[in-house]
């Protein structure tokens, strides 16, 4: 029997708090889960620094990847024998769903920004490179790894396959919304996924929703909106993220300037030098990063030491909301004052905008900007969701945006009252 058709003697199941059970029957899927590059995802948290705000948010990219696989598996059971669906693509969809986040690194968002990396490049590199994952996929056919990479990269010719993994209503989002809600313990993020799966239909090159399922989709769009503001863009989580980014900036600068580290940052060397090869990338996980933060808290450099202690012990920066248009001059003055009192503004006064954490709001957009969610009307026509749903129209119009300034209030308060700038700083910050 061809490897692609091989089935396990008996179905394996993973107990999962979100989907109850994750079912595996294909030998290929079982082998991929066992590959070391996939097991590495256990050591990367799904929500990065969110655990400092919601202590339950310790779930990993491993859990999420299995969840996305399970959702796609269930969708494909519903698609079997439907027009427009090519059952030959089943295994490709399942592999792409399972592996779609393979290239995420530790605290991905900050690492990508500071070291100018893109986890999608590493997902591709792991699938196509000298890895156990690539060996397994190649047993199906020599061009199979490339097909999986193309689906994840959204450049696979069959757009229907792509849209299962990545579109405005896809398995990835349906899993992370529910999973993140479960682990953070919030009450937003819930929607009737079973209903959505039942009303999904493959139509030409996209997945559409039967009009009768519109209200379930409205719920899903509302969850996305609420989870963004309540969980993903939580200001305390952002504070931890700001400190994390500044640690990485600081340590990179020290390395570039030839600083003599007490503890050599060997795992980071290629990141600092801008040439991160695949093996170096795979070696760095969150356990390693947190170990280094402990080591760097013992360094002589006062800024690095302080930032690492803050991150490790959750002594985070405070924040104020600001309007860069109305308060531009005040903030310019603030930067000057920080430097004057010896708080290096590059590390201790940080602006953070909602666009610094791009999150996929539902956007009907304009023609051919991005594919919106389409409803399949009883007469067979397709209609864009926000044109049919007043609720969706209301939240996909003008967006709320947000700008905050982060600073170490404790360090400012610790300054002597004799320093004239202290009063001025606190005044501008409204403290």
């Amino acid at each position, binding site marked *: 029997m061809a490897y692609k058709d091989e089935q396990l003697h008996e179905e394996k199941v993973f107990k999962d708090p979100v989907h109850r059970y994750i079912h595996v029957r294909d030998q290929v899927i079982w082998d991929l889960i066992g590959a070391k590059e996939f097991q590495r995802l256990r050591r990367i948290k799904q929500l990065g620094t969110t655990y400092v705000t919601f202590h339950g948010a310790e779930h990993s990219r491993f859990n999420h990847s299995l969840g996305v696989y399970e959702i796609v598996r269930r969708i494909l059971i519903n698609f079997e024998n439907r027009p427009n669906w090519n059952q030959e693509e089943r295994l490709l969809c399942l592999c792409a769903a399972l592996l779609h986040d393979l290239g995420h690194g530790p605290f991905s968002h900050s690492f990508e920004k500071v070291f100018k990396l893109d986890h999608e490049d590493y997902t591709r590199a792991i699938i196509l490179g000298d890895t156990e994952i690539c060996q397994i996929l190649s047993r199906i056919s020599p061009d199979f790894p490339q097909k999986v990479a193309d689906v994840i990269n959204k450049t696979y010719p069959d757009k229907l396959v792509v849209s299962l993994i990545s579109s405005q209503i896809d398995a990835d989002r349906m899993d992370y919304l529910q999973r993140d809600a479960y682990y953070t313990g919030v009450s937003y993020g819930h929607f009737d996924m079973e209903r959505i799966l039942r009303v999904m239909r493959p139509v030409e090159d996209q997945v559409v929703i039967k009009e009768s399922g519109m209200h379930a989709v409205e719920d899903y769009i509302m969850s996305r909106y609420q989870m963004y503001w309540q969980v993903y863009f939580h200001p305390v989580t952002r504070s931890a993220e700001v400190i994390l980014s500044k640690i990485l900036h600081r340590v990179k600068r020290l390395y570039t300037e030839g600083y003599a580290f007490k503890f050599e940052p060997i795992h980071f060397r290629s990141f600092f030098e801008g040439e991160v090869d695949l093996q170096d990338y795979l070696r760095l996980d969150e356990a390693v990063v947190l170990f280094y933060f402990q080591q760097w808290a013992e360094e002589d450099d006062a800024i690095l030491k302080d930032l690492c202690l803050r991150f490790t012990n959750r002594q985070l920066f405070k924040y104020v909301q600001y309007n860069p*248009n109305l308060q531009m001059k005040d903030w310019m003055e603030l930067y000057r004052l920080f430097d004057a009192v010896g708080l290096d503004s590059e590390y201790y006064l940080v602006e953070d905008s909602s*666009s610094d954490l791009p999150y996929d709001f539902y956007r009907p957009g*304009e023609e051919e900007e991005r594919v919106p969610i389409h409803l399949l009307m009883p007469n067979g026509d397709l209609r864009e969701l926000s044109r049919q749903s007043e609720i969706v129209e209301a939240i996909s119009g*003008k*967006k709320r945006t947000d700008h905050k300034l982060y600073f170490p209030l404790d360090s400012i308060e610790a300054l002597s009252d004799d320093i004239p700038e202290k009063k001025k700083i606190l005044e501008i910050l409204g403290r």
Partner: protein
Amino acid sequence: MFVLLKNHAKLLKVFEASEEITGRKKLQKMVYILKKVGFPFEEKYAFHFYGPYSEELSLRTEELCNLGFIDEIKEKKSNYTQYRYQVTDQGEMFLKESTLDMPPVDEKIATLKEESSRFLELVATMLYFEPATKAEVEKKVQEVKKKSNYTEEDLAKAWTFIDKMKH
């Protein structure tokens, strides 16, 4: 020198140099092409149904609107909504106060603005598949853009355009 909202300022510069941009898709592809030919834009792009798309850019544009630095004019078309953007006086003032670290971009923007969003979509898609060979890029474009029916002339024009943008 500290620059407040430096990525916003760079984007605002694109709106200012364009005087007016019609269409979100056109804006997306213009910034992507500028980024690919070496201008220091930091918005992260991923491939979507219609070519490279950046959620970060969409959000940043919304922020510029909400801050009052650009005006967004909505026009209802039969099947979709089209958006036009112009810099406001406040936006001009913000740009004047920002010390932008960006090479001269006006001429490139004028070249981009003259083209249709359909053509810019083709150029952006070709640039997305770099550094593959010319033949590989064309094959991939025809695969992912089957419905767009780009002709050989379109592809030839796009290669000349890319060359012009890079020099």
